[in-house]
């Protein structure tokens, strides 16, 4: 009976472990995949481990994560231990309220902690800006920086903030268990307080400190939400990098790096376990008065460390380790901050990443390259005040909104000679009539992507997005402007209408279809995985992205429906008061060149506004791959005039209409 129950218990524990580890094994398994899919096995390969060392984004985010977690753990362990000692020597009247406040960061939802810290930092930066300007005005001896931004510093503060409570929580019970008379006794026997601390208190509470530090470190490494809100634009932890990728495609490089980290921790845990088991054995032996045999060298080393010289050595070694640590941290931060940089915010997988390396090599300017997934998100990042981007790549209508709100800086075209290569039809467009702010980056159309094996007709109308026939098979684009714009086009209205009744009618169309269960989900960049894997039949997305999906799934087809569609231009702009204006000019000029446009086109499949690059692309393709570029593909990428004729460009809508769009969109999410 008893044995049976025990076996049952073990089976249950085993099942839970299977549940916990199944996805992890899968991740590790696919880190050895020859292909880049996380679902289809294409043979064994170690190439992702090799690539890991060339992927700067991943390596840097791992370094940031480890640096921040280590520093935060170190600081919070020391601070938390002393705080706990302090708190426990207070009277109850004071202790209890402090412990309640101490619990707040732990009890609060991460998102609330993150958001409140973010608001706090931004408010502080604004106040500081005013103070620094005043201070710099009244004296000239010290020049204070007037502009602070979110970054490594704020990230570290945030991590320390949520780590300290864990340390205190783990140290506190040990303090409570400790006999208070011990310290008094030590002091009566002639110890100073410091000596009493080192010799009495510390050994007593050491297990609490160790487990507190361990939990703090684990929490720090695993944290995403708080980092997401407090890291700003130039710092990225591994979690943030992964979050950016989960939308589009997680490269197996991430699997590889996570596998390595996982193995490292596993080894540490195994060693620790063996050591603990060993110690338990020693303790058992001691209890039975059997002599414990240590290897000879261990005993000798121990003896030597006990001598005066040994003690001095110990201190020197500890000091050296501390100094080395501080020097590494300081030099690392100094190295990363002293380099000339340009901060770029673009869309996911919207550049041939080798170009970034080449630009850095050629100019010595470091590129902090971050991505978001929609114009609206980018706008939030800018409005939020914590980001300090130089170059952004918004679409047409968002550009006019940014110009209207005076958020863009006029470009210095004398520093961008390559602007002359841009096709005249992409200059002086309505969003920037005098072309003072922008250099076009790409252009393209929105259309329907469908899986020919799952749809048995030739689709040529938006109507399929609202058709019961495809219930549960349609992916709605998760962005108010495109989704409502498409519905407006289907109804025969202008995509730029400001007539509330028309917009509401378009909304009703979508809402009705949603209620009937037509939509499987609302996606942005998640569309890649879903469509490539054949998990949905119909989606709406951008022409260039369709061609990327086509590379991974040949059954997909693309059409610009007969009712017309949207055509867009994404252009590079520089934000007002950008801290690295000249570097930004160099970056823009670099990307506007013919060579870069050809390679980008080849990589992201969005059409280039560079006249020669676009015209020469088919020939270039043939030269590169020794095969002809399918003219159909070229036409999808660079839509010919007859297609563009039925397309309309978005213009910036007035404030009330934008609010209506937003409200309707939230409404759709709620129901």
């Amino acid at each position: 009976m008893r044995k049976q129950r025990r076996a049952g218990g073990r089976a249950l524990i085993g099942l839970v472990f299977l549940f916990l580890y199944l996805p992890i094994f899968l991740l590790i398994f696919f880190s050895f995949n020859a292909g880049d899919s996380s679902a289809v096995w294409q043979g064994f390969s170690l190439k992702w481990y090799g690539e890991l060392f060339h992927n700067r984004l991943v390596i840097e985010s791992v370094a940031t994560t480890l640096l921040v977690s280590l520093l935060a753990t170190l600081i919070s362990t020391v601070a938390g231990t002393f705080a706990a000692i302090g708190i426990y020597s207070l009277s109850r009247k004071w202790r209890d309220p402090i412990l309640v406040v101490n619990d707040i960061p732990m009890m609060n939802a991460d998102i609330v902690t993150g958001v409140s810290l973010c608001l706090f930092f931004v408010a502080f930066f604004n106040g500081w800006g005013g103070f620094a300007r005043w201070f710099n005005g009244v004296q000239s001896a010290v020049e204070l920086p007037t502009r602070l931004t979110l970054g490594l510093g704020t990230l570290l503060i945030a991590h320390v903030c949520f780590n300290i409570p864990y340390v205190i929580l783990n140290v506190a019970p040990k303090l409570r268990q400790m006999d208070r008379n011990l310290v008094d006794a030590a002091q009566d026997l002639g110890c100073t307080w410091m000596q009493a601390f080192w010799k009495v208190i510390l050994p007593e509470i050491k297990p609490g400190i160790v487990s507190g530090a361990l939990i703090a470190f684990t929490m720090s490494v695993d944290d995403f939400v708080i980092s997401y809100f407090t890291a700003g634009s130039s710092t990225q932890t591994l979690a943030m990098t992964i979050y950016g990728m989960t939308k589009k495609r997680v490269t197996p490089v991430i699997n590889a790096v996570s596998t390595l980290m996982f193995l490292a921790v596993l080894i540490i845990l195994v060693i620790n376990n063996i050591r603990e088991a060993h110690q338990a054995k020693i303790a058992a032996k001691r209890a039975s008065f059997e002599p414990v045999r240590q290897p000879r060298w261990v005993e000798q080393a121990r003896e030597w460390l006990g001598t005066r010289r040994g003690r001095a050595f110990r201190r020197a070694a500890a000091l050296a380790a501390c100094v080395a640590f501080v020097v590494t941290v300081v030099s690392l931060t100094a190295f990363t901050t002293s380099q000339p940089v340009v901060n770029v915010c673009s869309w996911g997988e919207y550049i041939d990443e080798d170009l970034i390396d080449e630009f850095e090599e050629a100019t010595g300017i470091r590129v902090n390259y971050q991505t978001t997934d929609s114009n609206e998100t980018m706008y939030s990042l800018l409005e939020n005040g914590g980001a300090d981007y130089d170059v952004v790549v918004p679409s047409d209508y968002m550009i006019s909104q940014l110009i209207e709100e005076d958020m863009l800086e006029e470009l210095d075209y004398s520093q961008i000679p390559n602007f002359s290569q841009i096709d005249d039809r992409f200059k002086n467009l309505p969003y920037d009539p005098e072309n003072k702010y922008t250099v076009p980056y790409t252009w393209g159309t929105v259309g329907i992507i469908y899986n020919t094996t799952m749809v048995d007709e030739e689709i040529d109308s938006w109507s399929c997005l609202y058709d019961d026939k495809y219930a549960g098979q349609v992916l709605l684009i998760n962005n108010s402007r495109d989704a409502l714009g498409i519905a407006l086009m289907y109804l025969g209205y202008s995509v730029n209408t400001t007539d509330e009744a028309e917009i509401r009618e378009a909304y009703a169309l979508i809402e009705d279809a949603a209620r009937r269960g037509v939509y499987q989900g609302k996606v942005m960049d998640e569309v890649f995985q879903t469509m490539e894997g054949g998990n949905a039949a119909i989606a709406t997305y951008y022409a260039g992205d369709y061609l990327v999906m086509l590379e991974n799934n040949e059954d997909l087809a693309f059409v610009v429906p007969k009712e017309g569609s949207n055509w867009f231009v994404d252009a590079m702009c520089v934000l007002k008061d950008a801290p690295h204006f000249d570097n930004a000019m160099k970056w823009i000029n670099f990307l506007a060149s013919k060579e870069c446009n050809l390679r980008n086109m080849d990589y992201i499949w969005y059409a280039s506004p560079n006249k020669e690059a676009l015209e020469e692309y088919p020939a270039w393709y043939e030269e590169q791959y020794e095969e002809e570029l399918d003219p159909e593909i070229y036409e999808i990428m660079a839509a010919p005039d007859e297609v563009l004729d039925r397309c309309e460009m978005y213009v910036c809508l007035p404030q009330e209409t934008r609010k209506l769009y937003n409200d309707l969109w939230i409404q759709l999410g709620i129901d």
Partner: protein
Amino acid sequence: MKNKRSLFAVPYVVWMAIFVVIPIVIMLVYSLTVTVSTETGEAMEFTLENFTGMGLYVSVFTRSFWLALIATAVCLLIGYPVSYMMAREGEGFQRVAMALIMLPMWMNFLLRTYSWMSILENNGLLNQLFRKLGVIALYNSMTGRNIEYFQMIRTPGAVVLGMVYNYLPFMILPIYSVLSKMDKSLVEAAQDLGADTVNVFRRVTLPLSLPGVLSGVTMVFVPSVSTFAISRLLGGGTSMMLGDLIENQFLGGAYNPHLGAAISMVMMVIVVICMLVMNHFGEGNEQAVML
């Protein structure tokens, strides 16, 4: 001497005032204002409309709390027996098991959740397995329907699964820690006094493990109710949760930090009330425990 030692608490109290209390106060200020553009620039103006307009989001609140509640219940149902069984095992087994429960946290939770996506997709591993095993054919012949896959991803169920998967260790750790420290002689005493297994559990073990359960419930419920990454990855944007709504107001499409702050405040207050009510039943248990 005592007073001198209590000075150690001062820096931390100052730290908390700056980085814990003031941010929440700022959030409160944000939730009670709106930004209006005036001639001189932008200014904040007092208003209650962020709160009064929240009726619109009632369904998001109920959905989030409901899903988080289910996830917490499932975690408790799985986590309690596991902790109970673990606590009765030998010391070596316990040590290894504890390490194994902590270990997954070292693989970033987003990545693990992403891994679930490829398991749960319509063409994912689980559906492929079902197809191979003939489960889907069996289902079709039994119900007379004609499906090619079970829709698992982009459903509320997938979101709950993601929560359970991610937060189960937070339920097991505190319960286990209480159970393993429990004085075994209490159980023996109860048995000596004639209690049967059920009664021993009900009148001795369970009440003693309550603090662990309470802190486990807190540690699962709070992150569940406020998650946005899990619902985004596994829910496919179809069922908006509180976390999504808040994130959307700060870094998403609908930029309105004032509304976001107001929603955060309301969520915080509701969570605190839940915790207070729960702790009331826990009666004077000093604090949450983890290890």
